[in-house]
C-alpha cells in the first residue's frame, strides 16, 4: 500500500521501515564526512555566527558547497549529486552538530525552500541558470511567501503582478515579511497574484530596482541568521522568470513546504542530540549534596526521556526519508513532467512530513526545556548553552507552517484518504467488534511482542474514536479544531509507535545494546498507549452524550484495557540513563 498514512491501517507485523541501522557503507561515509565538517569547521565558529556575521556565514555556506552538501537534492546535470531525501536528511542532521541553529536555518532555507522549487518546477533554462550556483553556494537563496496578512493563511497574499504593456515583464508590488536569508540572498523565490487571483511564483533578483530590504528583525532567537521584510515596489520581473505555470503557484508553495517540514524534523533531531550532549556534560560535572547530579533519580528520568524522544524522532525522520525516496523512485525519469510528478509523489506523504515537523519540534522543545532545568539557575544564564537552544528552537513550532496548521493538515489528509478510499480505513473499522471480542492475532515477535500488540490495538482505538467523530461531524470535524487536534495527536502517536517498534524489531540483532533499545521501545509504548487511552475518552465526551456515550466509553475502555501494559518504566529509565552516561552522548 504505497501511500502516506498507511500506518493507521497496516498491521504492525507487516510493516518494514527505513532506518539508519540499515544504511549502506556509502551512506555512513556521507554522514561521517558531514559530521566531520560540522564539528571541525562550523562548531568553532558558532559564537561568531551568532554575532550576525553575514560574510562568515556565506563563506561557510560556500564551503558546504565545495563538499557537495548543498547539491544533495540537485540533479547531476546541474552540478548536483541527486542523492535523495535520506541523504539530504542525514546532511541536515549532521550540519546541526555545528551547534548553530542559526547556521542550520540559513543552510536549510537555502537548500530546501530556496532551491527545491527550481529543481521541481524550473524549466531547462532556469535550472541551467540557477542550480549550479545554488549547489556551489555562489548564489544564496531566500523563499519569500509570507506577508503581513498572509502567514499561516498563505494563499491570502496580496502582492500583485501585472503584465507590462509590451508583455516582456511583470511588475510586482507588495510587502514580504519575515524572510529567512532575506538580508543576504542573491535570489528571491517569491509569490504574487496576477490580476488579483492567479497565484504565481517568480524568480526575483534582489538587486533589481524597486526591491528594498528592510532592517533585520530583532528576533527571540536565531540571532546569527538573517530575517527581514522585503518591499517590492514596481519591480520589473522578466516573463521568463515565472517559475512553473501562471496561476500554479500554490502547487509550488505547498509541495516545497512538505519537504521543508520533513527536513525540519531532521534538523531538530540533530538539535535534540546536541541538547543531550550539552546537558550531559554539565550534569556529569555538577555536584550537589555531595553527589554528581546526573545520578539523581529525577535527573536520570529526564535524560532517559530525552533519549526515548530522540530515538523515536530519529525513527520517523528516516522512515519518512526512505518513503519519499521510494515514492520518487517510482516516477518515470523520462516523463516530460518528471519533476512535477516527483512533487506529487512527495505530497502522498504529506501526513508523515507534517508529523516529522510537529513531533520533532515539540520533542526538541521538551528536551531543551528539561535540559535547561538540569542546568538549574545556570540554565537561565546566557553564558551557558541551554538558553540559546531554548530561544532558537521556539520558532520551530511556528515556521514551515505552525504546529496548529500542521495538525490540521495531518487530520485533513487522513480524512481525504478515508473519503477517497485510498486507505482501507472502513474495512479496518469493521474489524473493531471482533477485536473487542478478543479476535486479535497473537504476536510471536522475538522482541517487544506485547508492545507491538498494544500498538496494534492502539490503531483500533484511534479508528474507533475517528469513526465516531466522522459519524457525528462528517468533514466538519476540521472545524472542530480542539477535537481535531486530539485526533491528530493520536495519528502522530500511531506513526511514532509503529515506526519505532518496527525499527527495533528489524534491527535488534544488529545493535550493540539490544537491552537498551528494547527498554526504549517499552517505555515509549507504555507511556504512549496510556496517553492515547485517556485522549480517546476525552474525545468521546466531546462527541457523544447519554447512553451512546456510556456504551462507547465502555468499548473504548475495553480496548484500552487490552492495550495497557504492566511496564515498570522507572527501572527502565534508569537503565537507559546509565547507558547514556557510559556513552556520554546520544548512543545510537
Amino acid at each position, binding site marked *: 500500500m504505497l501511500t502516506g498514512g498507511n500506518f493507521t491501517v497496516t498491521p504492525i507485523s507487516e510493516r518494514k521501515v527505513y532506518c539508519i541501522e540499515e544504511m549502506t557503507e556509502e551512506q555512513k561515509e*556521507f554522514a561521517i*564526512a558531514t559530521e566531520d565538517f560540522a564539528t571541525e569547521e562550523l562548531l568553532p565558529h558558532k559564537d561568531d555566527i551568532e554575532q550576525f556575521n553575514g560574510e562568515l556565514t556565506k563563506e561557510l555556506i560556500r564551503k558546504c558547497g565545495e563538499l557537495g552538501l548543498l547539491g544533495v537534492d540537485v540533479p547531476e546535470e546541474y552540478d548536483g*549529486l541527486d542523492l535523495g531525501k535520506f541523504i539530504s536528511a542525514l546532511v541536515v542532521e549532521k550540519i546541526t552538530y555545528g551547534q548553530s541553529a542559526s547556521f542550520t536555518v540559513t543552510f536549510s532555507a537555502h537548500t530546501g525552500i530556496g532551491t527545491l522549487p527550481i529543481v521541481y518546477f524550473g524549466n531547462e533554462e532556469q535550472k541551467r541558470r540557477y542550480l549550479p550556483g545554488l549547489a556551489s553556494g555562489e548564489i544564496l537563496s531566500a523563499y519569500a511567501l509570507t506577508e503581513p496578512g498572509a502567514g499561516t493563511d498563505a494563499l491570502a497574499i496580496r502582492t500583485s503582478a501585472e503584465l507590462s504593456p509590451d508583455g516582456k515583464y511583470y511588475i510586482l508590488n507588495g510587502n514580504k515579511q519575515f524572510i529567512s536569508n532575506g538580508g543576504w540572498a542573491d535570489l528571491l523565490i517569491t509569490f504574487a497574484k496576477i490580476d488579483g487571483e492567479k497565484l504565481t511564483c517568480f524568480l526575483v533578483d534582489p538587486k533589481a530596482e524597486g526591491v528594498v530590504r528592510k532592517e533585520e528583525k530583532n528576533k527571540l532567537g536565531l540571532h546569527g541568521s538573517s530575517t527581514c521584510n522585503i518591499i517590492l515596489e514596481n519591480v520589473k520581473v522578466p516573463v521568463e522568470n515565472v517559475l512553473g505555470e501562471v496561476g500554479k503557484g500554490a502547487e509550488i508553495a505547498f509541495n516545497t513546504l512538505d519537504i521543508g517540514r520533513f527536513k525540519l524534523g531532521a534538523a531538530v533531531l540533530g538539535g535534540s542530540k546536541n541538547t543531550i550532549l550539552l546537558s550531559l556534560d554539565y550534569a556529569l560535572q555538577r555536584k550537589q549534596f555531595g553527589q554528581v547530579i546526573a545520578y539523581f533519580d529525577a535527573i536520570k528520568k529526564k535524560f532517559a526521556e530525552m533519549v526515548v524522544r530522540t530515538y523515536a524522532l530519529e525513527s520517523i525522520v528516516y522512515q519518512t526519508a526512505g518513503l519519499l525516496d521510494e515514492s520518487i523512485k517510482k516516477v518515470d525519469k523520462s516523463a516530460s513532467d518528471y519533476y512535477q510528478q516527483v512533487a506529487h509523489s512527495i505530497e502522498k506523504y504529506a501526513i508523515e512530513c507534517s508529523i516529522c515537523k510537529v513531533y520533532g519540534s515539540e520533542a526538541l522543545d521538551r528536551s531543551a526545556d528539561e535540559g535547561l532545568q538540569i542546568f538549574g539557575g545556570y540554565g537561565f544564564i546566557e553564558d551557558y548553552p541551554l538558553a540559546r537552544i531554548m530561544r532558537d528552537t521556539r520558532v520551530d513550532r511556528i515556521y514551515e507552517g505552525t504546529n496548529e496548521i500542521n495538525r490540521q493538515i495531518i487530520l485533513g489528509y487522513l480524512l481525504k484518504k478515508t473519503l477517497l478510499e485510498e486507505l482501507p480505513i472502513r474495512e479496518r473499522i469493521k474489524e473493531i467488534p471482533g477485536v473487542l471480542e478478543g479476535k486479535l492475532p497473537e504476536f510471536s515477535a522475538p522482541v517487544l511482542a506485547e508492545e507491538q500488540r498494544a500498538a496494534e490495538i492502539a490503531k483500533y482505538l484511534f479508528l474507533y474514536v475517528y469513526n465516531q467523530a466522522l459519524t457525528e461531524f462528517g468533514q466538519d470535524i476540521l472545524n472542530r479544531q480542539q477535537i481535531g487536534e486530539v485526533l491528530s495527536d493520536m495519528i502522530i502517536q500511531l506513526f511514532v509507535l509503529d515506526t519505532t517498534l518496527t525499527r527495533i524489531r528489524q534491527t535488534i540483532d544488529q545493535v550493540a545494546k539490544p537491552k537498551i533499545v528494547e527498554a526504549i521501545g517499552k517505555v515509549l509504548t507504555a507511556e504512549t498507549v496510556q496517553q492515547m487511552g485517556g485522549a480517546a475518552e476525552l474525545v468521546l465526551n466531546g462527541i457523544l452524550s447519554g447512553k451512546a456515550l456510556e456504551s462507547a466509553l465502555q468499548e473504548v475502555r475495553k480496548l484500552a484495557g487490552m492495550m495497557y501494559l504492566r511496564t515498570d518504566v522507572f527501572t527502565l529509565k534508569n537503565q537507559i540513563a546509565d547507558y547514556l552516561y557510559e556513552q556520554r552522548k546520544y548512543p545510537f
Partner: protein
Amino acid sequence: MNIAVCVKQVPDTETRPKIDPSGKKMSEEGVKWILNPYDEFAVEEALQLVEKNGGEVTVISLGPAAVEPTIRAALAMGAQKAIRIEAEENPADPLVTAKALAEVLKQGNYDLIFFGKQAIDDDYAQVPQMVATALDLPCATVVVKLDIEGEKLTVEREIEGGKEKLSLSMPAVISAQKGLNEPRYRSLKGIMKAKKIPIETVQVELASGQLEIEKVKFPPEKQPGKIVGKGADAVPELVRLLHEEAKVI
C-alpha cells in the same frame, strides 16, 4: 609522480578506552574507527604534490577487510588507487608491519612513500623508519615542510627545541607531522568516486613478531593535590615531601 601513502585505521580520538578481557589489548567493542589523524597530513601532501606535478597516489594499509572504510576515507580525499595487505589483525610488533609494507612497496616503483609520523593507537612511531631501512631509502620523519626541485627533496623536520632542514634524494620515505598542511575534507562527490575504485588485496607472508604484549593497563588515577602551608614557612615541608614522597628531587 608515483606516490604511496601508508595509512592505518585507529580508534576515534574521542573513544573512551576500555581494556579487552584478555588484558593484552584495548577492547574494540563499540569503537568508532577513523583514519589515523597524522596519516591525513600524509595523504593531503601526496595529493597536493600530484595535483601540482601529475601522477597518482596509492593508499596502502595492512589489516582485515574491516579496515577498508579507512582506506575509502583516504580515497574519498582524492587518492587514485588502493592496496590492502591481508592480515587477520594488526601485528603487535611494528617490525612485522614494516616488513610486510616494504614487501609491497618495493614492487610499486614509488618516488615518494608517505606515512603519518605515528599512529595514535600504539604510538610506536617506528614503522616509517623501519620501512626505509628495509628498502634502503633515505628517510625524514616528523616533517612539517616539504619542497621538491627536480630529483631533490628539501624538508623541515621538528626536533627538540627547533627545526632541522634536510635534503634528500628521491625515492624517499617521509613521515608527516601536524602543520605540514591543512588536510581537506572528504566531499560527497569524493566519497561517490571512491566507491568505484577497487581495493586491490594482496597476500604477504607475515614475519613472526619478536615482540609480545603481556599486559596493558590504565595509568594510575591522579591523586588529589595537597596544600602544605603558606609562605616561606611551608618550603621545608614542601621540599621534604617532594624528596621523600614524590621522589622527584
